[in-house]
């Protein structure tokens, strides 16, 4: 049975190892989809709806078609159809230059009859609101869940809290916008450079769409600039590029504009929770009653976790979706968790305060996770929890400091469906190939580490090929923090099998049984006689004209799902300007076996930064007057920059020697930790994100 072995035996696994692609990325050598340029390539753009809701009366493409340099214009809707959100596709153009394509869009004549719209949850649920989809009152049927005896629970409660928590829609803000470069080598063979999280998923989608065999579509994603759950399919833009490419017989590049990226490429749905909860005098959560909703735009899927992490025996929850004339939600880093965590961790603090209990102690009582119990101790120590205000807002001076804590959980155990090959060539070179994709998580480097560990080589000795469906070695999409736990076991077993084969070649030379062979550093030796050794290249030289090429298998025993995390925040609030500065975040994250401790820490850092953005800055702002998103840019849609990023103490919390993904969980506990720290600093609770200066100043004024 395969195992990752003891930490003391690992030369590479679990150590801090620089990303193999780091140098290419910082020097610009790394090619992202945006950087791909093909001979004869055309540039495509999409004309989108300016309005939130309208019926298409007429489309005329002729003027655009007549513009010199335009090679193809196609409609993406038709007269009589409805456009249901700003940004929805109307038509597309392919032209010799991007400028010509942009000019051509303005020559497309579109006649729209505008319809009443709702772009906010409040407007959608108003009594006289126009119904915009097949939901009465624009609300889906509520999902109701009841457990235990909620009335008995409230009777037992010594204290209750009733509150409403809200998180707005957040967009993914992938630094590389969605897009593809498509090229038909003939009418049955398509190559796509895609900015995607799912090379094989995109391959299969294109194959279905264009009715060609899947093995005649090749999808390549060598590097990609962020997906966060929004890049699993080709999207309208991908299909459009391939269609334009087919019509013109030329390669086509179609990347979304920043504006379109905000409008149509997915978002994290909003959440509003009305909660009433009770706790017993000895600090047990005894009752939880929640009614809540969110909007995923015109689509459903606005779910969230409630209650979250902490156990409540008696509970009733009711949640539904609200339809609005806005772009569809898509999975976004730990879907449903950060917003649920913000509400739950705020609620926990409110209850603890009513009980007169330290919020950390209150959590300990209600948290059944042993891992998190240990993390609470470590995190509290690292942040200096004893320094917090025992009376919130009691600090003196204009700038007040406070501390808070939040928690999270995730799966990340991986799954079947990855095929890989590890090849050893006679010249000593090693290749590891699989159809996964490196979406910034560092899987390329993790693969190299695993193979190098197995062979006694350096990670840089391993040529890793991922992000290409060409070799026909499928792997799943990178979602749910599943990539490493899905891929690592297969790579490991493939490398083990290849090593075994190499040992079989070496054994006669060393005159030792295969079982007695081991790898050293760049050598193979006999365990019972360590002086009996060959170098790696001497060994591979025995292969002559052959190569060893072995596949691997997913092995349940090499991975495990389920992680716990907790974060502590220290903030400083300027009570004159309302500005919240996060001073420090301590992120204690259960990771299972971290193949590469450095990139695992990077994952945690990135999660914390994203969580910080959601807590303090980010919000899709929809205008009820015009139906438009007012901040579909990076000026008014604010993401954290260097000034916002605090000291982050990322602690890789080792729990076991099995691989678990950790891409999503670190962005979860940040929200509650910061929000609770703000409360601890100023003594006023802000129950609506983001916590911007206007909200802080308004809250302080109301308190005064």
């Amino acid at each position: 049975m395969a195992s990752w072995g003891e930490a003391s035996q690992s030369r590479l696994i679990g150590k801090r190892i620089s990303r193999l692609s780091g140098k290419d990325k910082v020097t610009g050598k790394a090619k992202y989809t945006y950087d791909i340029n093909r001979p004869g390539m055309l540039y495509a753009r999409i004309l989108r709806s300016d309005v939130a809701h309208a019926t298409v009366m007429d489309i005329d493409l002729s003027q655009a078609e007549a513009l010199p340099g335009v090679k193809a214009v196609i409609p993406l809707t038709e007269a009589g159809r409805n456009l249901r959100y700003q940004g929805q596709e109307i038509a597309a153009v392919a032209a010799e230059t991007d400028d010509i394509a942009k000019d051509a869009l303005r020559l497309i004549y579109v006649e729209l009859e505008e319809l009443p719209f709702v772009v906010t949850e409040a407007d959608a649920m108003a009594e006289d609101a126009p119904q915009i989809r097949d939901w009465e009152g624009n609300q889906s049927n509520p999902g109701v869940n009841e457990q235990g005896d909620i009335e008995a629970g409230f009777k037992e409660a010594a204290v209750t809290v009733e509150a409403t928590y809200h998180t707005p829609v957040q967009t993914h803000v992938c630094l590389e916008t969605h897009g593809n470069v498509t090229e038909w080598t003939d009418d049955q063979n398509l190559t796509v450079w895609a900015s995607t999280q799912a090379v094989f998923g995109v391959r299969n989608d294109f194959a279905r769409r264009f009715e060609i065999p899947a093995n005649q579509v090749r999808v390549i994603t060598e590097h990609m600039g962020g997906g966060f759950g929004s890049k699993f399919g080709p999207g309208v833009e991908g299909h459009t590029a391939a269609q334009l490419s087919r019509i013109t017989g030329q390669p086509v590049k179609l990347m979304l504009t920043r504006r379109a990226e905000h409008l149509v490429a997915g978002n994290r749905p909003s959440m509003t929770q009305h909660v009433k909860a009770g706790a017993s005098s000895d600090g047990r959560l005894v009752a939880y009653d929640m009614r809540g909703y969110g909007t995923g735009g015109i689509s459903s899927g606005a779910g969230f976790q409630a209650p979250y992490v902490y156990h409540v025996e008696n509970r009733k929850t009711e949640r539904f979706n609200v339809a609005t004339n806005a772009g569809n939600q898509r999975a976004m880093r730990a879907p449903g968790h950060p917003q649920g965590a913000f509400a739950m961790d705020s609620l926990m603090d409110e209850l603890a305060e009513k009980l007169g209990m330290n919020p950390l102690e209150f959590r300990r009582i209600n948290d059944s996770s042993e891992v998190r119990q240990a993390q609470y101790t470590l995190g509290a120590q690292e942040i200096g929890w004893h320094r917090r205000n025992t009376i919130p807002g009691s600090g003196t001076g204009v700038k007040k400091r406070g501390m808070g804590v939040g928690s999270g959980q995730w799966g990340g155990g991986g799954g079947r469906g990855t095929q890989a090959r590890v090849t050893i060539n006679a010249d000593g070179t090693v290749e590891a190939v699989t159809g996964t994709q490196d979406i910034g998580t560092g899987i390329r480097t993790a693969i190299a580490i695993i193979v190098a560990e197995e062979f006694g080589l350096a990670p840089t000795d391993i040529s890793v090929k991922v992000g290409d469906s060409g070799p026909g070695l499928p792997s799943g999409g990178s979602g749910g923090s599943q990539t490493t736990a899905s891929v690592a076991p297969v790579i490991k077993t493939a490398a083990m099998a290849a090593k075994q084969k190499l040992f079989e070649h070496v054994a006669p030379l060393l005159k030792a049984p295969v079982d007695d062979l081991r790898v050293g550093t760049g050598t193979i030796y006999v365990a019972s006689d360590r002086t009996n050794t060959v170098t790696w290249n001497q060994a591979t030289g025995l292969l002559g004209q052959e190569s060893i090429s072995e596949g691997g298998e997913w092995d349940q025993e090499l991975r495990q799902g389920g992680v716990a995390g907790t974060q502590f925040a220290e903030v400083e609030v300027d009570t004159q300007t309302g500005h919240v500065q996060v001073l420090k975040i301590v992120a204690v994250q259960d990771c299972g076996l971290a193949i590469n401790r450095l990139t695992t820490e990077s994952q945690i850092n990135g999660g914390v930064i994203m969580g910080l953005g959601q807590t303090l800055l980010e919000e899709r702002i929809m205008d009820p007057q015009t139906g438009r998103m007012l901040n579909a840019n990076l000026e008014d849609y604010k993401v954290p920059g260097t000034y916002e990023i605090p000291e982050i103490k990322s602690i890789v919390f080792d729990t076991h020697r099995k691989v678990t993904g950790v891409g999503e969980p670190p962005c979860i506990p940040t929200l509650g930790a910061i929000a609770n720290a703000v409360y601890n600093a100023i003594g006023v609770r802000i129950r609506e994100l983001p916590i911007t200066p206007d909200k802080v100043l308004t809250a302080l004024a109301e308190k005064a």
Partner: protein
Amino acid sequence: MEKFSYVNATSLKQVTSLLSDSGWGEIMMIAGGTDLLAELKEYIETPKTLINLKTLPGMDSISADASGLKIGALTTVAEIAMHPTIQHHYTVLAQAAASVATPQIRNVGTLGGNLCQRPRCWYYRDETVSCLKKGGDLCYAVEGLSKYHAIFGGDPVYIVHPSDIAPALIALNASIKIVGPEGEKTIKVEEFFTLPAANPFRENVLEPNEIVVEVHVPKPNPNTKSLYLKAREKGAPDFALASVAGVFEVMGRTCQAASIVLGGVAPAPWRSTDAETALTGKMINDSVSAKAGEEAVKNAQPLNDNEYKVTLTQNLISRAAMMAVSK
């Protein structure tokens, strides 16, 4: 953006004569382009011709002498921010310039461009919204989302002037030299900016055929302390939610004279004579500075979403006054 022809400027005379045939927006001037390019890309402006001012000689330098500063309109924001004399004697100006945008933008953005930049209002910047400023019927901020809009002097257009440098220059009592077909004139920077009640479409008094060429800043008295405070949602880059340019003549803890100009709260840089009066001749302490803040905002007229700016402005003024008398 629309196609345009591009002309390199050779002399001010040539520029003003090219401009003289033009109404607003047909022929436009470009220097750093950090604002104009975005307007062109968003089709907010669609000029037929751009005149490149960067080829004009002798307009990109700073000279300092006993009487004050002369700063050419083509001087970059970065040069102003990093100039040692400005940092020492005209601190408010250096701090305001340093607070602008990002290093990349400061390195190309010019003084003239900073003063003539257009509003950031999200209705104005959306091509598809025909707002009052662009010749439409209404200012959408009045009934719409107005978090970043004006609390002073808005009627009928509630934009805020986005410049950080302008409030600093006004607080320093600077003048601006303008050249037109009829020759040159020098006016106070304070008089350069206008409110929407006078002209809803423009933010200053420039005619379509005039060009800003230089700014003069008189040397402050030796007992002057000046500073720029800028509140924003994000450390950088971000425009001011509210800002205060304060120039104080202080003796000990006594404020002998105060010049206080606000940014981010009105369609033009907004001098607060109420705050100045409340501070002048007073020994500055917590209650005097607080009173100055209160006085400054007593006539504020917030919209639906920007009541917080009233508090913020008040607090920034108090803070500036306290900082003026602290070591």
